[in-house]
């Protein structure tokens, strides 16, 4: 076969050729394929190996992240408290005329009975400095707690009752074994004497470790044993609500207009390019914009979730618009034609047929945007949501902070106990994110099940 190209199949030549010639050529093809086969399989094997390595590396990093967060943070879910028999004498809460009024209860010195109760445990402690060291075991929050108890139940006045309150964070940390007592005494926050007293209290069964409800019910505090994330959770909730209520309708309406109604000209092209660019703008820039426009021009309150929500709306809008447009584009044209063919108007076509089919994609985009907003810190720093807010915000206009900013604030705090708190707050934030993503998946499934 003197064909110029041995690979070209020439039927006339093949028909003319003898069977042997044809088989020779087939064998050569097979041989060529065979020779290359090993290399091809090797390449495939190599590629698979790269994949496995990549997955393993990713899994390892995720595991490291979770292990480090959980191992640091789990202790924050427990709290050490002390139970002391306390007596609030009538004299202490009475006013100058010897009467007990709401006002006299509010202004009484509740630290005194607590200190007395503690001193009663250690009669041998006498000197002023030693007594002050002893008082450090009690949390600053204990006297507020006592005041609340008396306010709620004035019958307790003059009677001895047992009060359980958190110990101060240094002793909480000591109880959790995070203070090394072999370190020279002047290098640690708990002295030998304090450690001895604490041990004595433990032996008397007055110290117990319980679940830390403060973490989930309190706002922020300078005292780690009193600090909680509830304020930040409520702040995050209001912020996200404002974001969702603004960005979903605006985003979907913008996407529907651009995709279905807008004429295709250079203006809409320009808008499209700008929306895509906005998605890539660093979020802190939106924070600056919020500061300049919402706070300075419109005079909205500082640190308020409503402003945070507005800023995060700006940030999530491009995400939602892009996802919604993609979802609208993916609705098959045959459905549109079917609707128009029976005489549906354009709006009817969109609301009855296109939107329901695009909804899963839109919801996914929205929830991804919301999850992004939930984890956002930088723009909120610019509008003052980084403030130290103790009160639980009562509405979107109250000063508040959000979960990631709370994490940032705690990570910045010097007290040892805030290390665990930071990790605990991260765990809560991650739990919320996982919950939101699960909601996204469920919602999508639910909508897609309508065939």
């Amino acid at each position, binding site marked *: 076969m003197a064909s110029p190209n041995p690979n070209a199949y020439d039927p006339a030549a093949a028909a003319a050729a003898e069977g042997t010639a044809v088989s020779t050529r087939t064998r050569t093809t097979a041989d060529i394929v065979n020779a290359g086969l090993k290399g091809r399989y090797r390449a495939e094997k190599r590629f698979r190996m790269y994949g496995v390595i990549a997955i393993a590396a990713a899994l390892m990093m995720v595991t490291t992240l979770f292990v480090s967060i959980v191992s640091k943070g789990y202790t924050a879910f427990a709290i050490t408290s002390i139970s002391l028999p306390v007596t609030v004498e009538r004299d202490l809460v009475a006013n100058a005329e010897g009467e007990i009024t709401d006002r006299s209860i509010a202004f009484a010195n509740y630290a005194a009975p607590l200190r007395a109760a503690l001193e009663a445990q250690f009669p041998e402690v006498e000197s002023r400095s030693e007594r002050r060291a002893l008082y450090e075991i009690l949390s600053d929050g204990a006297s507020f707690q006592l005041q609340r108890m008396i306010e709620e139940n004035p019958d307790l006045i003059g009677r001895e009752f047992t009060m359980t309150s958190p110990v101060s964070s240094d002793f909480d940390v000591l109880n959790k074994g995070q203070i090394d007592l072999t370190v020279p005494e002047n290098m640690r926050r708990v002295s030998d004497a304090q450690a001895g007293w604490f041990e004595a209290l433990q032996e008397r069964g007055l110290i117990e470790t319980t679940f830390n409800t403060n973490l989930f019910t309190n706002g922020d505090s300078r005292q780690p044993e009193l600090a909680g994330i509830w304020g930040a959770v409520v702040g995050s909730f209001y912020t996200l609500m404002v974001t969702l209520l603004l960005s979903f309708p605006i985003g979907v309406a913008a996407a529907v207009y651009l995709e279905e109604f807008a*004429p*295709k000209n250079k203006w809409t092209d320009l808008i499209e390019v700008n929306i895509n660019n906005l998605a890539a703008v660093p979020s802190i820039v939106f924070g600056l914009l919020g500061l300049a426009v919402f706070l300075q021009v419109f005079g909205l309150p500082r640190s308020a979730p409503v402003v945070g929500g507005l800023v995060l709306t700006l940030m999530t809008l491009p995400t939602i618009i892009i996802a919604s447009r993609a979802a609208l584009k993916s609705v*098959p044209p*045959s*459905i*549109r*034609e*079917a*609707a*128009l*063919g*029976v*005489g*549906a*108007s354009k709006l*009817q076509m969109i609301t*009855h*047929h296109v939107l*329901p*089919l695009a909804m899963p994609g839109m919801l996914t985009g929205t929830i991804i945007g919301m999850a992004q907003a939930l984890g956002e810190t930088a723009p909120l720093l610019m509008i003052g949501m980084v403030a130290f807010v103790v009160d639980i915000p009562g509405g979107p206009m109250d000063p508040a902070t959000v979960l990631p900013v709370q994490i940032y604030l705690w990570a910045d705090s010097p007290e040892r106990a805030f290390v665990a708190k930071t990790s605990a707050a991260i765990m809560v934030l991650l739990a919320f994110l996982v919950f939101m993503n699960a909601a996204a998946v469920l919602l999508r499934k639910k909508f897609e099940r*309508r*065939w």
Partner: protein
Amino acid sequence: MNTQAPAAAQSAPQADAQQPPAPQETAGAPLLGPGETPKIASRDVHVHYGEKHAIKGVNLDIKENEVTAFIGPSGCGKSTFLRCLNRMNDTIDIARVTGRITLDGQDVYDKRVDVVQLRARVGMVFQKPNPFPKSIFENVAYGPRIHGIARGKDEIEDIVMSSLDRAGLLNEVKDYLDQPGTGLSGGQQQRLCIARAIAVSPEVILMDEPCSALDPIATAKIEELIDELRENYTIVIVTHSMQQAARVSQRTAFFHLGNLVECGDTEQIFTNPQHRLTQGYITGRFG
């Protein structure tokens, strides 16, 4: 014989560039005689897709209560022309339609004509069965509901049942009316689409290759259905199958490269075509 089509394709743009395209003389009888009133009449209809001149001056009358078939090779403009009749080309931004198309003497491209009303009068069945992703009942009920043709549940149910019955689908689906329309077989889906179209009681039904995605048995059922529907509706069908055109239609129009080459009684077109292109096409020498 394949040389004919490319040669024509090359010459056509040149002619466009030099002078306004002279409408090709149509062989046969595209227009009805005096005394006969067409249901749809088109005069000098041109369609441009951007630069592309897709329909080049079509003059054609469509008779009431008849099946008119459009045949021709792919890309000849028969679907484009069909979509002009209920202004489905409006949805394509770059499409531009000139000329005059009248439905019962009323220009459908007149500004005063509402496209929603037009499409309620001129229903359409598409190439690919495209039921809504809703229940069989909802598919058929949708049209009457949005137009407010039926009031109350009973009336809608009556319309749905009679439409499904006329589309020959009722016996097959009457126990599954709440099941998704997309779960039916291809032929059933297409009949569902026909039921959906006739539920609005249109005067004209346009069918764009309704059987091209169906097997021969489903096709036979649809053809039977078209023959029955002819009594009450004016039907225009685009088809690639010449046998189908011969079976279901009374009049046939042959399109080639945007021109209406020949139009006449189906029997005459298939037995005694007057234009050499028609002859070439129906004898299978090109297309």
